[in-house]
C-alpha cells in the first residue's frame, strides 16, 4: 500500500492567506471593542461557539465511526482528528471571555440576585466561579480524550496490529458519553443562559445535534477540498453518498428537534417560554426564524434526497456552504437579541468570522500536515479504499 502514502504540504501562500484572515479578524475585534463592545463580545462568543461546536461535532463523528466499526470512513479519519485539534485553541478563547462576562451575560451583573428572584434561585449554578470551573472541566475532558485518541491513531500508523483499534473503540465509547453530557451543559452555559429567564427542555439537545450536523458538514467540505487539490485519490461517489447521508440524516434530526421545541412552546403558551420567540419575532429576527429552517433543514433535505445529487460534488458543495451560513444565522438568532438587542450586521461581523475561520483553517491544516492523510494500518483501510455500493 505504498501508493497510499499521502502527506499534505501546506503551501506558504495559503498560510499567508490565513495569516491575512486572522489579521482581518484581529482588526475587526479591536475596532469592535472600541466602537461597540456589546457587538464585539457577541461576535466573539458567536464565532467561538461556532468553531468549537464544529470541532466537537467532528470529534463525535470520529468516535461514532470507531464504535460502529465503520469501514467506509476509515481512510478519512485524519480529518475529524485534525478538526478536533482546534479544541485546545478554543479553550483559551473561552477562558478569555472572563473579561466580557458582564457585557454578555446579564445574570453575571453584580447585585442582580437581590432584585431578581429567579436569578437568585439559579445563582448556585449560574455564578462566575462555577461557570469557569465548568469551562475548565469540559475543555479538560475534551482535550484529554481527543489527545488520547489521536495518540492511539498515530501509534497505529507506526506499529500496526489490532490492539490500537480496540483501544480506540473502547475510549470512543467513553468519549461519546462525555461529549453528550458535557456539550449539552456547555450549550446551556454559553447560549441558553444568555436568556436566563427562559425555560426549554430541548434546547441543549438541539445544540448538540446542530454541532454534530455542522461538524459532519465541514468534514465533508475538507475531504472534498483535499480531493480537489490532489489528495484522497480514492474518493469516489460512494464515499460522497455516505457523507451526504450523514448530512441528510442530521439535518432531518435538526429539523425535528427545532420543530419539537417550537411546537411545544407554541402550543403550551406559557409566558416564561414564549417570551423567547416573542422577542425574536420582529424585524430581521422574524426572517431569520424561517431562514434557519430553510438553510438547515429544507435545502439539505430536498437537495440531498435524490441518489444522483447526493453523490455529486456539484450539488453537495453549495448545500454545505448554505449549511455553514445556516449555522451562523442560527447562532445569530440566539445571541444577538440577548446581547446586542437589535439586528446589527456589517463589516465587523464578517471580519470577525473571517478571522476565526482563518485560525480554524490554520490549526486544522497544521494538524493535517503532521501525519499521513490516510492512516496506514487501520484494519478497515482496504474496505474504505474500495468502498462501492
Amino acid at each position: 500500500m505504498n501508493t497510499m502514502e499521502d502527506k499534505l504540504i501546506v503551501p506558504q501562500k495559503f498560510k499567508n492567506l490565513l495569516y491575512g484572515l486572522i489579521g482581518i479578524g484581529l482588526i475587526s475585534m479591536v475596532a469592535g471593542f472600541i466602537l461597540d463592545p456589546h457587538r464585539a463580545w457577541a461576535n466573539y462568543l458567536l464565532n467561538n461557539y461556532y468553531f468549537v461546536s464544529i470541532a466537537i461535532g467532528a470529534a463525535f463523528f470520529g468516535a461514532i465511526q470507531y464504535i460502529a466499526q465503520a469501514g467506509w470512513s476509515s481512510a478519512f479519519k485524519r480529518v475529524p482528528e485534525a478538526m478536533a485539534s482546534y479544541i485546545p485553541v478554543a479553550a483559551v478563547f473561552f477562558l478569555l471571555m472572563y473579561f466580557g462576562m458582564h457585557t454578555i451575560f446579564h445574570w453575571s451583573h453584580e447585585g442582580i440576585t437581590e432584585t431578581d428572584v429567579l436569578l437568585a434561585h439559579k445563582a448556585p449554578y449560574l455564578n462566575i466561579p462555577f461557570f469557569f470551573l465548568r469551562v475548565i472541566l469540559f475543555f479538560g475532558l475534551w482535550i484529554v480524550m481527543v489527545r488520547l485518541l489521536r495518540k492511539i491513531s498515530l501509534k497505529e500508523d507506526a506499529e500496526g496490529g489490532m490492539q490500537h483499534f480496540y483501544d480506540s473503540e473502547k475510549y470512543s465509547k467513553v468519549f461519546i458519553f462525555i461529549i453528550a453530557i458535557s456539550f449539552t451543559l456547555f450549550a446551556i452555559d454559553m447560549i441558553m443562559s444568555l436568556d436566563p429567564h427562559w425555560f426549554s427542555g430541548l434546547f441543549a439537545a438541539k445544540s448538540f445535534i446542530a454541532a454534530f450536523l455542522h461538524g459532519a458538514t465541514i468534514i465533508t467540505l475538507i475531504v472534498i477540498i483535499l480531493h480537489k487539490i490532489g489528495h484522497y485519490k480514492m474518493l469516489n461517489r460512494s464515499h460522497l453518498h455516505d457523507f451526504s447521508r450523514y448530512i441528510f440524516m442530521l439535518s432531518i434530526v435538526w429539523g425535528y428537534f427545532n420543530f419539537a421545541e417550537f411546537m411545544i412552546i407554541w402550543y403550551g403558551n406559557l409566558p416564561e417560554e414564549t417570551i423567547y420567540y416573542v422577542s425574536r419575532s420582529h424585524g430581521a429576527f422574524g426572517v431569520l426564524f424561517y431562514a434557519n429552517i430553510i438553510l438547515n433543514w429544507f435545502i439539505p433535505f430536498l437537495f440531498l434526497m435524490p441518489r444522483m445529487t447526493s453523490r455529486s460534488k456539484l450539488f453537495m458543495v453549495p448545500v454545505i456552504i448554505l449549511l455553514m451560513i445556516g449555522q451562523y444565522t442560527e447562532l445569530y438568532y440566539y445571541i444577538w437579541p440577548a446581547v446586542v438587542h437589535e439586528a446589527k450586521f456589517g463589516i465587523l461581523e464578517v471580519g470577525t468570522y473571517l478571522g476565526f475561520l482563518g485560525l480554524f483553517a490554520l490549526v486544522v491544516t497544521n494538524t493535517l500536515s503532521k501525519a499521513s492523510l490516510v492512516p496506514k494500518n487501520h484494519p478497515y483501510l482496504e474496505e474504505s479504499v474500495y468502498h462501492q455500493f
Partner: protein
Amino acid sequence: MITNRKYLVGVFDDEHTLKDAFQKALDKGVVIEEVYTPYPIHEILHGMKNKTNITTAAFFYGLFAVVMLIGGMYYAAVVDWPLHFGGKPFNTFPSFIVVTIVATILTITILTLFTFSARAKIFPGKKEEIIDIRATDDKFIILLDQDKMGIDKPEVTKLFQANGASEVYEKESN
C-alpha cells in the same frame, strides 16, 4: 403466464461462479430472462439493468399526502367548522405538522406497497411461480427464455457448465 414457455435453467452453487457466468453470458449477447438469488447482488442488479422508479413515485405520493393532509386539516379547522380552543387561532399550523409527518409516512408506505404489488403482478391468493424450489434456499438460478435467448441451446449449456454451473436443465412453464 398464459402461453407455454420453454425455459433453460442454470443452477449455481455460489455467488462467484454465478457472477462469472452471468458476466460472460452478457458479453456473448445472451438475453437473460431473470436471475434468482438468495440475497441481492450488486453486479446482477447492474447487469440486469432493472432500474426502478419507485423512489420517485414514493416522493410524489409523499407530496400528494402532505398537500391533502394540510389542506384537509385546514379545511376542517378553519373553513368548515372553526372552533375556539383557549384563545388559539383557527389555523393551528404547527400542530398540523405532527399529524402530517405521521400520516405522510403511512400514506407513502401503503401507496408504495400497492404500486409495487401492481407492478410485480402480485395480489393476495396468487399462485406462486417458482421455477426451481432450491432458489428459495441457497442456490443461484439464471433463467433463459428459449425462444429469445439469442444463442443456441448447446452453446449456452456449455458456457454455464464451463463456468461452474452445477446443473443446467430445461423446464416448461404453464
